[in-house]
């Protein structure tokens, strides 16, 4: 069954795979953001109602999308953006010092 929830879970799993296997620092940051996006997709899909409208209370609306996940995930998106920016700033500093983005080579150097 293809819907938002199952695609969200697949995206999270891709992110986890990336974070566990990739040795490039930029790819690790990307994997982190992919994980975050997957969870956001999943969370929004939970509140989705097929054919629903925006949850503004007016007379005559029957089907409405749950507004809470959308409001909550807006916060989460902003947090994800901030974290990614900070992580990339750290990557720049590390690259300046070591001249490589390979995590194994950076870890060797004590």
């Amino acid at each position, binding site marked *: 069954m293809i819907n938002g929830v199952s695609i969200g879970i697949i995206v999270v799993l891709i992110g986890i795979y990336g974070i566990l296997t990739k040795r490039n620092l930029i790819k*690790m940051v990307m994997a*982190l953001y992919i994980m*975050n996006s997957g969870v956001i997709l999943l*969370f929004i899909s939970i509140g989705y109602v097929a054919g629903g409208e925006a949850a503004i209370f007016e007379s005559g609306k029957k089907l409405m999308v749950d507004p809470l996940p959308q409001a909550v995930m807006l916060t*989460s998106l902003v947090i994800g953006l901030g974290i990614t920016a900070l992580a990339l700033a*750290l990557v720049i500093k*590390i690259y300046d010092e070591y001249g490589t983005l390979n995590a194994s080579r*950076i870890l060797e150097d004590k």
Partner: protein
Amino acid sequence: MTFHAPILVIVVPLLSAFLTHLTKYTRLKRGAEIVALTSMIVSLFFLLSMSGPVFSGEVLNYDLGGWPPPAGISLTVDGLSFFFSLLAVGVGLLIIVYSLGIYVYARRYYSLLLIALSGILGIVLTRDIFNMYVFFEILAVASYILVTYKHKTRAIKASFKYLIMSESAWVLFLLAVAVLYGLTGSLNMDDIAAQTPIIYQTNPQVIYLVFALMMIAFGIKCGMFPLHTWIPEAHSQAPTPVSGLLSGLILKVGLYAMLRVFFLFFGAPLFLRGAGSIIVYLGLITLIVGACLALAQEELKKLLAFSSINQIGFILIAIGLGTRLGFEGGLFHIFNHALIKTGLFFCAGIIISQTGFWKIGQMKGVWRKMPGLTAAFCVLSLAVIGIPPFNGFFSKMFIVEAVLLEQNYFLLFFVFFGIIMTAAYFFRVIQTFFAQEDFKQKPDFVPQPVGPFEHLSTYVFAAFCLLVGLFPGMVLSLIHPAVKVLLP
């Protein structure tokens, strides 16, 4: 004013964090420091104004903006959150006092420290699970930047490792929150807690999934065994007051979340089915691994970091047992470990800044140069081992007694093993400090002057260890309302 106290406890340090930057435009000489200290004292005042109702067993609820719980965010002050917030404000105040001497005119530093402390207070007081996630992220971002504050390369590397591990923890936590929201349609912890027993009966697998995801998230935060790898790097590379913050408070916040969320959501049914023993045995491995690795460390700060992992093992064992005595011992040890380990990191920071050495073997004869500080180090390390007149004795006694009542002698053996190993690695350090050789500094090393503030905060921690050891009833009267929340 008392009515708004729960939110003021969080908001005062948070707003002061931004106020510290504005002191640039005033004529105050050390404006940032004054703002930081004042805000923590005001926060402590608001917290203490709620102590009366909390001690009488009342639960204070506060709805943000007047919106009732299912839609709005509510803050709750009960025994457990009062205990942890008092710990956070008290230790935070002493961390700021220690920083006064080293970070002069550092507006950015005090601002980040206040953001981190308000994040901790928010996590402890909130009753909305998504709000808890947001405060966790606030705390996390502030602490990543604080670790790199001195722009040392190794610190940046440590911070990146901390960031990757901690952020994957929070993504998993958010996934668990999403699953819970999908099941219950609410983000309020009390609403979710009311519905979990029903869900557990119809669909236990989904509860196991949520438990596993949250266990990984909180395990990374509190340094549980397979997920502890960020701790030694981040703790040893961070500036000294930040090491104190990481070890004293940030690890404890993970334990708070574990206590609050697990016992509120899953409660008795899951714990009877073996979830408690998962925590106990992971705690046991954490204890053994932390003790063995601490014994093998060359650097003083790394030894202290592994010692933190070791002590977290004791706390996890006590919490996982799920008995009244276990909770008392676990919470008491959380309190004691926050005081002791922050004090020990402060001692280590001063010794390193005076000698220029990082390795234990090079710190011979330190007591000739710094007798008072060596005495404080001895007091604090005897306290963490659990020698009677100090506070660590009582908490470890409670933990041993709780294990003994379970009649699990395998566990008891390893708890004693942990205590003996703690003694082994701390006596190794003390032995070096009292060595016969003359005190030496690193060649061409110019020690930074150590002011009265650093000494003051270190001695206050040592004095508290003795005081709590002599009068454990003081802390126990704080712990009893907290245990009442967990086991009604």
